[in-house]
């Protein structure tokens, strides 16, 4: 437990020691802000029109603003996650500090868990900063905060799951660029799996679609918390972390 915290703290600190971290946070918040602006603009426009046509004013803000926003944000995440994970193991392998970690009385699983949780914490910060945009909704409107919370939980789970795979890919190489490209490819793959259901309805297509991280995010975006989706994410996280631990072990054998 203590070892895990040692790794976690070091990793988190080294995120914030670099300007890259702030660049990522800023990038995310700006893109988020743009999508937020677009979504609210459409919303305002629509509600204005519906009022003109004599329908009731309060359209569903969640349906019109939060949900499309969250779907977009989950896609931005795919671009940000490789930048967060690329360094984790690749850099330690390149610089040789992996020898320090792996010859210290620490278990491989503690190293992996510490690094992944630091990455997830950093991603949570990225999300938290971007969420400041939503303050405007609460100032000028009166949205229901519970579905927003659910959506954010979904974003975090989806992120944690992709981060686990990104960590795994980073452990396969000593080159950060390759680690980033690999993680991006994996994220993209897990994303586009969802598309197959658009033109294929056979059993296999549903299986492939089930594997997509986006399929499982949709209910969260709607504000629906379904244990089935939580289980999907949690098991995917386990799989990613398990693969990383195995990869570290095999690193010893391959060297």
């Amino acid at each position: 437990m203590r070892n895990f915290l040692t790794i976690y703290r070091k990793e988190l600190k080294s995120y914030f020691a670099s300007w890259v971290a702030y660049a990522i946070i800023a990038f995310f918040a700006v893109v988020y802000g743009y999508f937020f602006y677009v979504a609210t603009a459409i919303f305002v426009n629509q509600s204005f029109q519906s009022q003109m046509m004599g329908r009731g004013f309060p359209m569903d803000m969640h349906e019109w603003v939060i949900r499309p926003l969250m779907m977009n944000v989950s896609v931005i995440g795919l671009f940000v996650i490789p930048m967060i994970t690329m360094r984790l193991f690749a850099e330690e392998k390149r610089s040789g500090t992996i020898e320090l970690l792996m010859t210290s009385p620490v278990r491989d699983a503690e190293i992996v868990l510490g690094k992944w949780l630091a990455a997830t914490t950093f991603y949570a910060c990225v999300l938290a900063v971007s969420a400041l945009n939503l303050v405007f909704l609460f100032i000028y409107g009166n949205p229901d905060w519970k579905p927003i919370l659910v959506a954010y939980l979904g974003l975090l789970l989806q992120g944690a799951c992709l981060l686990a795979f990104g960590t795994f890919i980073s452990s396969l190489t000593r080159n950060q660029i390759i680690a980033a490209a690999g993680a991006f490819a994996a994220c993209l793959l897990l994303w586009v799996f969802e598309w197959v259901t658009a033109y294929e309805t056979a059993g296999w297509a549903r299986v492939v679609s089930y594997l997509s991280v986006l399929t499982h995010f949709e209910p969260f975006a709607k504000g629906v918390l379904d244990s089935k989706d939580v289980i999907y994410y949690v098991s995917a996280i386990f799989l990613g972390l398990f693969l990383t631990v195995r990869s570290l072990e095999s690193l010893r054998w391959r060297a």
Partner: protein
Amino acid sequence: MIKVEGLTKRYGRTVAVDDISFEVQKGQIVGFLGPNGAGKTTTMRVLTCFLPPTAGTARVAGFDVLEQPLEVKRRIGYLPESPPLYPEMEVREYLNFVARLKGIPKRDIPRRVEEVCERCAIGDYRDKLISKLSRGYRQRVGLAQAIIHNPDVLILDEPTAGLDPKQIIETRELIKGLAGEHTIILSTHILSEVEQTCQHVIIINKGKLAAPPDTVENLTRRLRGAESVAVEIEPRNGVPDAASAQRRLEQVAGVSRVLPRDGRDGRLLFEVESLQGRQVRAEIARAVVEAGWNLTELRPVALSLEKIFLELTASEQAAGGER
């Protein structure tokens, strides 16, 4: 303290370490000597549990590297070939991190960090970023990292490689200062380093032990077996000339070879090698005196470890090394 038996390590088809066995007793400083690519790093990586052996066993303080790696790791301090540093950290921050990683109790950490800073003479650099340190100081931080948990065994992989001569001397002194408290294995491809820092030497070449592990002195003596003697003769009025003196020395019973050397002030100097196990000094003295020549010096010459090394390992590798 360390016991290695039949250790073999293969990388795919390359055999990096081939069936080596040795033991290191508590408190010894052992030099692990061999040319580049001999398998020194590989052996050390097995001892530190960074790599598993392909065959054979390695035990540190009675714990097997495969079966109880955590126990082994607790007792080992390791300085890899390139010090494992995080450039974005400050020295003190880095040492704090390593101290926690090595499982030092929280309340002891500040004291231990101070101690190793003092030990390794990096006290003035505590608050410097590691990326701003010179090569020599990085090496010291690397050493500080290796001894922070006061390990029983210190494993140092080429601790002086890439340093300038002044830094090399300082590092050697530092290592010698650590002797006694720790059992130390240090690898090097530089012979004088072993002669200067170590009591024991393990010579490895192409993954195999080139000679059984031994003390530096014993190894010198054992290889000497055949004695080598420097003979200096002062000629009077050009007698004897170099050729006849050499011929005379070659006739002495038990002499295998006579090598002319550069004498000073017109004196003749020869290095005379005896056959295995023969003492020839008395014979040489008698032969020279009986010929009526002036014997000005007769002294045994120690074969330097350097020579031994050249004899033990393929000479072209030693000569072509980066020294």
